[in-house]
């Protein structure tokens, strides 16, 4: 019963409207990878809303952003602490690779941080090199596994 009500809570929060504070609109989303068997016998991985997740499941965290204002926004930094109970794995294909951190202070690649496993990652961060023009948008996403 407890699990079921938490699950309902999850759905409500996951579908709540994006924050629209100021000229920057950002939506965080989480999906789970599900193997789907096609009629021709092949299996493909699809991303479905994270309903029932259990340890070992692969999940994808997505940040979608848009400049809803009238002037460009500069020095954009997206800082995403890796949630507790989740282990960072990799950027999603087609998403820029984030900078990684094992302490929330120093950022770089795993090799630069002296870490050997992505399990050690505690924070990921993306920085936009150029100002975000009015109306412009994009997404960042990373893959993780449930511990």
């Amino acid at each position: 019963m407890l699990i079921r009500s938490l699950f309902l809570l999850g759905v409500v929060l996951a579908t709540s409207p994006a924050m629209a504070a100021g000229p920057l609109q950002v939506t965080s989303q989480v999906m789970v990878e599900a193997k789907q068997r096609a009629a021709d016998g092949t299996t493909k991985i699809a991303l479905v809303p994270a309903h029932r997740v259990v340890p070992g499941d692969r999940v994808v965290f997505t940040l979608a952003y848009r400049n809803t204002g009238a002037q460009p926004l500069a020095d954009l930094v997206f800082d995403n602490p890796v949630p507790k109970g989740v282990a960072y794995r990799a950027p999603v294909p087609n998403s820029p690779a984030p900078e990684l951190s094992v302490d929330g202070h120093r950022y770089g690649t795993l090799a630069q941080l002296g870490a050997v496993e992505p399990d050690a990652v505690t924070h990921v961060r993306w920085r936009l090199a150029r100002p975000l023009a009015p109306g412009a948008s994009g997404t960042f996403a990373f893959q993780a596994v449930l511990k």
Partner: protein
Amino acid sequence: MTIVVALAVTPAAATTPAGTAITNTARLTYTAGTTSPASLDSNTVTIAVDALVEAAIAADRPTAPITNTAPLPLAFTVTNPGNAATVYRLAALADRDGITVATIAADTDGDGRYDPAIDRIVTSVTLAAGAQQRIFVLASGTLTAGATITATATAEPAAAATVGATGGRASAAVRLTDGTAPAAQLDKAQSVAAPGGGTRAIPGAVVTYTVTARFARDCAAVELSDAVPEGTRFVPGSIMLDDQPLADAGRFDGSTVRVALGDMPAGAVRRVRFNAIIL
């Protein structure tokens, strides 16, 4: 040689408990025009971790020598690799008629030894996530060497749980061995290669000794030693273990070839070979 009594049970890796809420919020900073940097948080997404049901069981030892005491307790360890408390139904099966394995006891005091006065008869165990419980399958009747006794733990998943890769069911087996047979058997063979061909044992001929060790039971910290015979000289660099060369250091002490084999499981076979020249 000594018989292994230690058992190795690795605890399950900790998984996120069922019911845990995992939340994600990103923080953004930016500047607009000439204003000072602003920051905002993204919406928070929450995912709730469901119950994952898995089962694991391992025999504390792969073989058990038959003894005169009845019943013969066979130790297994049931582990809950899932993330929620789970009930495991226990069952055992023998692959020979005449062996009774219907009774299972929990190692209630956790000392690893079956004690009928303390260890309680059970048909199931309830384990918290990651927890373990040793059980004894009590084998009685006509115990014969070579018979295999298999213990099975079957999870009874709660209605809303997800059953993982193991299907919530796991088995492990113990093979009965002859309690009176020696723990290991050594066979030694030799072949002679004389200079210029032939197999005559003449001075200068090379004798290849092959010692084969077969282990009928688990043996710990095994060392195989063989004295180089009088009238021969050990050929440096000739020691082979299972056809892999071994360095002489620490293995030839001037008179005897000694090879540490470590812990040997029942059924293992190791072959040590070395050469000596007839003086």
